């Protein structure tokens, strides 16, 4: 069985800083994006930092990650430098993937980010093959694949689970449930899907994560990883989270303005600040850190991180 180095069981400051780093790095990228520096479409993952940091801490060096169109947070959390990511988005040779992949297909095999697809559902089949291959080759690494509440509507979601369960292949299947697919809510596009019941019906495991709290995510995910390996089956890890960067558009019939979901592109209403909090403790992993650590301490650390990251940003 693959071995994960023991992780702190209580909230620790380095983990909080990892969350802050993923947020601040995205804020810098957003500034360049707003200034029109990128020609490629980028899906920022503001609000998705906690699960990415928890995944990075839960997986070991042999474990691999398979990602969808929204993937920046995982690349950063798994250790990619901000400069390398920015250069990749500028399609430079010095980029993380030598400027060959851009944003929607960003992969980094050296850090275990093996494959990323911009086509919904596409990565689930590939992840199934990677996981099966791992068991055939006796590789101890676990495969972890990320999808969304929208992408899981593709038939491949069901098909992949059927094979994984049928062949007793361990895998973590993370569903980032932000309630949206582009501009449509779940209720607009389909009926609700009870993933717990669905997992049971398929023979898979299931757990739910509050995506705002990195420590909750980490503890639950570690348990899920151990279960996947011990029970030799896939586990659906549903993460409830909010993609931040939304805004309200003045419109008749909407006294507070109409809620516009952030999907991709520059987050026009998000501005640069060393304390990059965009929501509250229920929806923002940064705000949620204040339930574990004193705010002045976090502010101070954020200032230092901000100054450090700023050096990686091209002028």
């Amino acid at each position, binding site marked *: 069985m693959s071995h994960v180095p023991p992780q702190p069981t209580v909230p620790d400051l380095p983990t909080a800083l990892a969350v802050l780093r993923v947020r601040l790095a995205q804020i810098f990228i957003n500034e360049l994006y707003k200034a029109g520096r990128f*020609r*490629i*479409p980028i899906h920022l993952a503001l609000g998705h930092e906690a699960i990415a940091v928890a995944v990075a801490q839960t997986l070991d060096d042999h474990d691999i990650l398979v990602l969808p169109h929204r993937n920046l947070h995982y690349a950063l959390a798994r250790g990619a430098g901000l400069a390398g990511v920015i250069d990749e988005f500028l*399609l430079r040779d010095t980029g993380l993937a030598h*400027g*060959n*992949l*851009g*944003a*929607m*297909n960003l992969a980094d095999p050296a850090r275990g980010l093996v494959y990323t*697809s*911009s*086509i*919904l*559902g*596409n990565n689930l089949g590939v992840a199934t093959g990677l996981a099966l291959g791992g068991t055939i080759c006796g590789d101890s690494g676990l495969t972890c694949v990320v999808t969304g509440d*929208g*992408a899981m*509507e*593709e*038939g491949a979601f069901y098909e992949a689970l059927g094979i994984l369960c049928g062949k007793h292949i361990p895998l973590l299947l993370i569903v980032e449930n932000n309630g949206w*697919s*582009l*501009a*449509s809510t779940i209720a*607009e*596009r*389909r009926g609700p899907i009870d993933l717990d019941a669905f997992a049971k019906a398929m023979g898979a495991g299931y757990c739910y994560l509050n995506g705002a709290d990195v420590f909750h995510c980490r503890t639950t995910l570690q348990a899920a990883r151990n279960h996947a390996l011990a029970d030799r089956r896939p586990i659906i890890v549903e993460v409830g989270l909010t993609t931040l960067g939304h805004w309200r558009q003045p419109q008749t019939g909407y006294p507070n303005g109409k809620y516009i979901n952030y999907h991709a592109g520059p987050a026009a209403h998000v501005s640069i600040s060393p304390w990059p909090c965009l929501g509250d403790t229920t929806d923002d992993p940064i705000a949620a850190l204040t339930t574990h650590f004193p705010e002045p301490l976090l502010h101070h650390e954020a200032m230092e991180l901000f100054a450090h990251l700023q050096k990686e940003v091209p002028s």
Partner: protein
Amino acid sequence: MTFVEYLNEQLRVALSLRPGPTVVYGQNVATGSCLSGLTRGMDTIPGCTTINTSNAENTLVGMGFGLMLRGVDALLCLKQQDFLLLGIDQLVNTWNALRHRDVRAAFAVITIVVDNGWEGPQSCLNNLDDFCSLSRIPGHVINTRHEADAVIHNTVFTSGVKIIALPQRLWRSPMPDLGSLPPPTTPGIQHYRQGDAATVVTFNFALSQGLGVADAFARRGQTASLFSVTDVLCRNWDAIIADVQKTKRLIVLDDSKSINRSSDALLLAAKIAVPEATITPIRRAPFTEERSSPNSDSLTVDAEALVEATGKDML
């Protein structure tokens, strides 16, 4: 009026004239930007049901066939041609089993071609020829107001299946209007200009480049005939061959990324019918490994050099 505004207006006119029920469906057709304006306002047309669907393209294509069999007109709108790949089984196999049925309703798939290159290797398809070749379903492109009128009012709602491709490159530009023209002698081929120095024939979305070449002839005091082939399965080249017999020079421009281009059929027919003609095919650079990363890919034509190189057979 922009390209998309004109399409939206004419589609709404066509929908409101339908005698029976119609379903317009696809992801985000009646929410958010409504496919960048293409489907805006269709939810208020009497008799027209709009459905913001889930991400399930294989089933969405199958649904269109089912609606058509029930006598309900179906219009499936997809934000990118790439996503139609997930429905290829339905296009090929379902249609193979149904093509001889006497269906009265229409099923049209409208795809937007986002081939600017910046979206990366999985979101840059411009391959209508391939979809039509596999499925033998008629395919149509729109470059101008004439072509929009012909496709929307004479094709979209005729009984049976068809795939329509629209160029995102023209989306926000004014709808090209090439003046009044006699009705085409061959369905699916627009004859825009008469000339005697060369026969310029454009396929797919290469009409703007074709106009550039025709203008380059005009700057030299010469005239070129200009045709645009808008029907992918068209194989009636009589009008074009008659023109080449007169000009003895054929220039074929095609911005399709397909390797099985329908323009190849014209090149062959012209070579056989007018062996003494000079034939110059201009195509897109092949899809090499290098070009599979995000890039500024497009069909570039040096019109002046092309006009200068008379007498050079490149076939």
